[in-house]
């Protein structure tokens, strides 16, 4: 009886440590292996955010969104990640797509592109992160 209790405690302990290690080292979520929750034109996504940010947040925040559009600019951020800006109908606003580490678009400004990424929200741009190339 005593032996059994010890065994159970021992197993629980090992499982606990194992789970702790797993949680601690859990890899970052990226868009690559996730199916997009929505697929639309970059300009359409931007318009939805600029018309009603609260509704758009409910619809897209934290979800993987696939956008297609024309590249206006490609930049590298301070962390060394590639940022691709997609054209919208707005003068200033874009859909900004920051790629995952070691990933890039292999594209150039002016090209049409399809990208998916996790939606962080809306500032001047609609912000997508952990992006990967769809086509």
């Amino acid at each position, binding site marked *: 009886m005593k032996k059994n209790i010890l065994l159970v405690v021992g197993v629980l302990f090992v499982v606990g440590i194992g789970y702790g290690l797993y*949680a*601690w*080292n*859990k*890899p*970052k*979520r990226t868009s690559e292996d996730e199916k997009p929750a929505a697929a639309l034109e970059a300009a359409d996504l931007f318009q939805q955010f600029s018309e009603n940010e609260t509704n758009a*947040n409910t619809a897209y*925040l*934290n979800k993987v969104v696939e956008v297609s559009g024309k590249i206006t600019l490609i*930049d590298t*951020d*301070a*962390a060394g*990640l590639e*940022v691709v800006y997609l054209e919208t109908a707005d*003068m*200033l606003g874009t859909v*900004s797509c*920051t790629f995952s580490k070691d990933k890039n678009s292999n594209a150039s400004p002016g090209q049409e592109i399809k990208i998916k990424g996790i939606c*962080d*929200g*809306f*500032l*001047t*741009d609609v*912000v997508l*992160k952990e992006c990967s190339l769809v086509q």
Partner: protein
Amino acid sequence: MKKIIITLTALICTASVINAQKLFSRAAYLGFYSNTKMEDIKADNNKANVVLDVPTGAIEISGLVKSFEFEKALMQEHFNENYMESDKFPKTTFKGKIDNLAAVNFTKDGTYNSKVTGDLTMHGVTKKVTVDGIFKVAQGKVTCESKFFVVPEEYNITIPNTVRDNIASKIEITFKANLEELKK
């Protein structure tokens, strides 16, 4: 000849700043740093926006809470879900004004210390704060930076007792931006 071109280029660049009514960045930096004996926690956000209205000294900074990148995915999850509740409050904003605008000359190279006072909103709570800011003008380019501290509890952020010793009572916030002319 080369010198003339360089001088001319410098003049044109300087001139563009002189004429600029609004300076802007969509890739400003916001840093989060918590230092305790137990552990150091750091996060970076390279996607903050800032708009500076040169004539009035009005400055607006906004950042998305979900754009803070932590070293550990688990920390990032806790930051978003338990503390900042970023689904409910996706944005952090600062809307303020340079107090000593007359002392900052955006058309002349130099380093200008300033005080900026305004409303800091995070986690749905708005507080009036005054922070130290440094504006640097060099070769027609303006950069600005600031470092200040926030107390999580003042913004209704509850930190459970079990981890209270792991998170600093005052979180250091760093802001840095390279501003460009906002063309409309």
